């Protein structure tokens, strides 16, 4: 998967936010790449820095509050050092974004048509009529019934699934090389979610768009992703192909996440449905990260003396199935959980 030039290459991305309680290190050295036509799923709990890491890429974090360092090459151009006007031009044709809540992502006082045309006309000298025709085409492409009629509708007249299609149409209106979906299906019910995922996969196949799919739904990850990046405490704690990570999770946190998935096929014992497994505790506050492994305070394993004091590096752990290395940042990769792996500790 890594053979062609990646659409996006992120190196050592760090985001520090100024907060009333002192500086918060929300993203701490994130590196990954997205190839053309590839889908990278970023998973993790709320507060693990997933959204901030992508908002930082497009310069959408509040000015003066966020300090972003590192490199983020979008088709060879560094997004983080780009002048604001160039960045504005890149938003849209370079990278489009779909936000979590379809209920709040559209301006309530403008018609769907106006909002679509706005995105189109920001990057071309298309006249109004042409932009309108293109907008109707786009709505058709994302499967909205009666696209011409929908142009004159206001967001409150559409259902959540319809709105999310509109939002995707807006994000795709300039055929971006990279599509960032920030929990794009979290607010939708499962059938609509499946339709949206199909839609994105189809568009991806047609246009060769690279996709970053942020979610905390591992079911979605299994369905859509080529590669997975597990985030915790602003760090990547494990990444690899979707098969490696989901079938042989190495980091105790990833195992916790997978263990927390409810198994609907599991029979109730004497009519009693087993309790859902959880990862106890909450993620660390980004103003106060632990000195050692970020997951240490909640970790059920804590099998190494260095856990509490030394940060584990992100290193390859044993063989991987695809072209991509399977890496994890932990001192305690348990043999049992890794199946074929032998070494208890990765270095």
């Amino acid at each position: 998967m890594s053979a062609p030039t990646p659409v996006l290459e992120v190196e050592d991305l760090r985001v520090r936010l100024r907060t009333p309680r002192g500086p918060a290190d929300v993203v701490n050295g994130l590196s990954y790449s997205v190839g053309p036509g590839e889908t990278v799923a970023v998973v993790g709990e709320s507060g693990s820095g997933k959204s901030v890491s992508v908002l930082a890429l497009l310069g959408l974090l509040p000015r003066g509050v966020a300090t972003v360092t590192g490199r983020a090459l979008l088709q060879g151009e560094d997004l983080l050092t780009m002048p604001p006007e160039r960045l504005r031009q890149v938003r849209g044709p370079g990278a489009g974004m779909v936000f979590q809540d379809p209920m709040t992502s559209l301006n309530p006082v403008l018609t769907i048509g106006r909002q679509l045309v706005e995105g189109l006309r920001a990057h071309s000298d298309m006249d109004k009529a042409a932009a309108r025709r293109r907008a109707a085409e786009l709505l058709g492409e994302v499967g909205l019934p009666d696209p011409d009629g929908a142009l004159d509708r206001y967001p409150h007249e559409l259902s959540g699934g319809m709105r999310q299609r509109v939002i995707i149409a807006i994000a795709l209106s300039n055929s971006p090389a990279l599509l960032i979906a920030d929990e794009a299906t979290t607010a939708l019910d499962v059938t609509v979610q499946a339709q949206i995922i199909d839609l994105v996969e189809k568009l991806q196949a047609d246009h060769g768009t690279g996709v970053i799919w942020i979610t905390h739904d591992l079911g979605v990850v299994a369905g859509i992703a080529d590669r997975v990046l597990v985030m915790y405490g602003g760090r990547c704690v494990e990444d690899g192909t979707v098969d490696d990570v989901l079938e042989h999770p190495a980091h105790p946190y990833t195992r916790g996440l997978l263990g927390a998935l409810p198994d609907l096929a599991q029979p109730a014992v004497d009519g009693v449905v087993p309790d859902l497994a959880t990862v106890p505790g909450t993620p660390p506050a980004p103003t106060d990260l632990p000195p050692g492994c970020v997951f240490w305070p909640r970790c059920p394993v804590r099998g190494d003396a260095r856990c509490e004091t030394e940060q584990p590096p992100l290193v390859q752990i044993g063989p991987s199935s695809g072209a991509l290395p399977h890496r994890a940042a932990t001192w305690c990769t348990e043999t049992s959980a890794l199946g074929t792996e032998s070494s208890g500790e990765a270095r």
Partner: protein
Amino acid sequence: MTGQPLPEPAASPTATDAGVPSTSRPPRPRWRETLGLLLRNPTAAGSALVLLGIVLMAIFDESIAPSGANQISVEDRLQAPSWEHPFGTDDLGRDILSRVILGAGVSLRVGFLAVGIALLIGTVIGLLAGYYGRWVDDVLMRFMDMLFAFPAVLLAIAILAVRGPGSGNTALAIGIVYVPIFARVTRASVLGVREEVYVRASRSVGASDLRLLTRHVLPNAAPPIIVQTSISLAFAVLAEAALSFLGLGTQPPNPSWGLMLAEGRGYIDLAWWLAFFPGMAIFLTVLCFNLLGDGLRDVLDPRQRTLMAGGGR
């Protein structure tokens, strides 16, 4: 295209919409829905109607007034209200009813002009301060605080002392005094709206700052500004009256409600109608602007809006 009407009472040609349920097709623009909801509120609808009447009266004053504003007739001086002079006459025998009708134009013109000035300048300042934040916010809002720190009447008097009395300068003075109020209301509203996802979403497809401000931020930040406009109109009419009362606003012999009040003061125990009728005109206008403002606030509040649209009838 803000999608919201300005609360000018004159701007209600769609008043016949009052009873149309909001589910009708084809989709109605948001401002028409708002107007429909507003007119379903009896207090607000009544106030709008009275204000419409007052505005019409001010527009057609020449043809309605039974006599000229300055038609002196010494033998009729200080007549009590009668069929011939329903509001009585003043110390120069001028018909009070005519002067109240003709004074409406002066009072309303000053009111609208003053609020227009404050709305324009204050909204732009508030928009820039709220949207850009940081040093822009600091500089603009500290300047507004300075303006705000002056006692309002004193500031208006100072401006009028420099520029000279007269209704145009009165409007300017009142307008300047109200700028910080609009700046603050706008800024507060913008601070909320600029964090909305759709603003970020629009930026993520490459919309420019100007576009974000005019198309996304301002229209959605408008409701409190509209309410403030309505309430400020009431205060501006009062302020004009007060400044005229002090001899700094409208100059005699032009009729203005505040000035008539001032002139009637000397005769209050002898001929109460001199001060009473212009006072009632001020009272009614201010009351209606305030009630309309309350109605607008209810209608424009999204939470209340849902309740009203859902269980309205």
